[in-house]
């Protein structure tokens, strides 16, 4: 059964050193309040998986020294440009980047979702993405004739972590059309979710709501976090990205000192508020 926890710190305690963690992109549901609590805990050596890319929250975790591996198709702050801490870490050689292409991440997660050892996909052959991934293999399509195809092993994160609009007390989480969150939850061993609101009733009872709901079966632990995606927005709600803040982040995070000041002001300094 889904554990209902009452503090972000209790949820953050489940994010342990070295965990492989599936992260949604900025336009899906980012559990930013939770990530701030994780940073305050001083977690290390995370292996982030962008599904299929990540942005602000991953850059924040990288800057805070929590990340060892970034496996992703891209890291970007969108209109605010390059992710500065990611860029600095790559140039310094202080994180390992496993570059991917979006559908390869989806293919790996879908293999895990299906309980299959791998998925095959077209594309990739002749790219340096493939050349640098010794965990992917080129095999022969058994239904073709001299037809190479790329095998992507099942990608089973230790954790899927995201923020959503609402959940009920059975642990069911409504995600609407953001189905990548469902694939993440199916593929991961455990799933941690923060939501704007825990509602009464059963989200699986109404067929309309059920169509966009991840069953509690897949949700390990859940906490309420108002505006938990801030400074990102949240789809299908009134919460829009705080572009002013993100621009400020992009600016401050350009230097190590600026990033340290950002952390002090908005992460370690926010503890009391969250």
């Amino acid at each position, binding site marked *: 059964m889904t554990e209902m926890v009452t503090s972000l710190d209790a949820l953050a305690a489940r994010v342990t050193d070295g965990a492989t963690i599936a992260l949604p*992109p900025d*336009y*899906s549901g980012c559990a930013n309040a939770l990530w701030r609590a994780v940073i305050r805990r001083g977690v290390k050596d995370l292996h982030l998986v962008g*599904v*299929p*890319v990540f942005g602000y929250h991953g850059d924040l975790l990288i800057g805070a020294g929590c990340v060892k591996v970034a496996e*992703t*198709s*891209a*890291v*970007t702050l*969108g*209109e605010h440009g*390059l*992710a500065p801490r*990611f*860029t600095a870490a*790559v*140039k310094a*050689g202080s994180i390992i*980047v496993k*570059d*991917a*292409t*979006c*559908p*390869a991440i*989806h293919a790996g997660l*879908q293999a895990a979702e299906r309980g299959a050892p791998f998925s095959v*996909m*077209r*594309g*990739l*052959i*002749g*790219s*340096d*993405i*493939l*050349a*640098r991934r010794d965990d992917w293999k080129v095999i022969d399509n058994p239904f073709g004739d*001299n*037809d*190479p*195809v790329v095998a992507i092993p099942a990608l089973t994160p230790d954790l899927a972590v995201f923020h959503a609009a609402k959940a009920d007390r059975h642990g069911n989480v409504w995600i609407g*059309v*953001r*189905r*990548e*969150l*469902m*694939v993440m939850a199916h593929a991961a061993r455990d799933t941690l979710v923060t939501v704007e609101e825990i509602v009464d009733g059963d989200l699986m009872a109404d067929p309309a709501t059920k169509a966009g709901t991840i069953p509690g079966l897949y949700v390990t632990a859940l906490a309420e976090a108002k505006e938990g995606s801030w400074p990102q927005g949240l789809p299908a709600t009134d919460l829009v990205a705080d572009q002013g803040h993100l621009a400020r982040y992009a600016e401050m995070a350009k230097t190590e000192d600026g990033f340290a000041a950002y952390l002090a002001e908005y992460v370690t300094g926010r503890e009391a508020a969250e």
Partner: protein
Amino acid sequence: MSGSDVQLEEILIHTIAGMLDGLRHVAVGASSPVPGAAALLARARSGGATRVSVLGSEEHNFFSDGGKELFDCAGQGRIDAFFLSGAQIDGKANINLVSIGDPDLPKARFPGSFGSGYLYYVVPRVILFRLEHTRRTLVEQVDFISAPGFSEPNVYRPGGPFAMITDRCLFDVDKDNRRFVLKSVHPGETVESIAENTGFQYDVPAEVPTTPLPDAETLALMRGRIATEIAEIYPGFAKRVFGLEKAA
């Protein structure tokens, strides 16, 4: 810029739209206002027969199956055209969205390859789009191949480069010889200025025309309906190019 009061963006939009007319479904990635406007122009001229999916837009997004659907849809053969760019693009149409120098300790690092490692292979008309046409961006050999321009004959590849448009010119793609061919130069540019600013070898036909300007009717459509539509997605762009404020 020459060409009376027609702006470069309008020439680009017009030129790209000409490559999209008659297609069933054009997808446009994030942060792509010019391709987006071109796709909306092609849709307007098709009487609605051309479908346009603009990623990152709520109004022009016809997907309901999560982040994978664009790629699935392309793999199903349901996307006829897409746009890719590159920090570097080379004469073999290889694109680099990752890094300059050794990828493990790069001199510059970009966001990453996104979906290019798949879409470049499966979308029939991939239009390369690069608004900085210099020897720094259009290079002899990219430092990292996010996706190759061409593949061995036994590699499944229904898709690939269809053309490349820059702020200076339009290149065709000669698939047999795996080379770019200069198709037209934008107003103000010459065959020589292109050569000067391009880091790779390409073919130059005897006659290289100037990229045609949109006619009055197209300009009116672009500055009217298309400007309004694109303003919903890229208000800043619509304001800068078309002088249009997004309605509140």
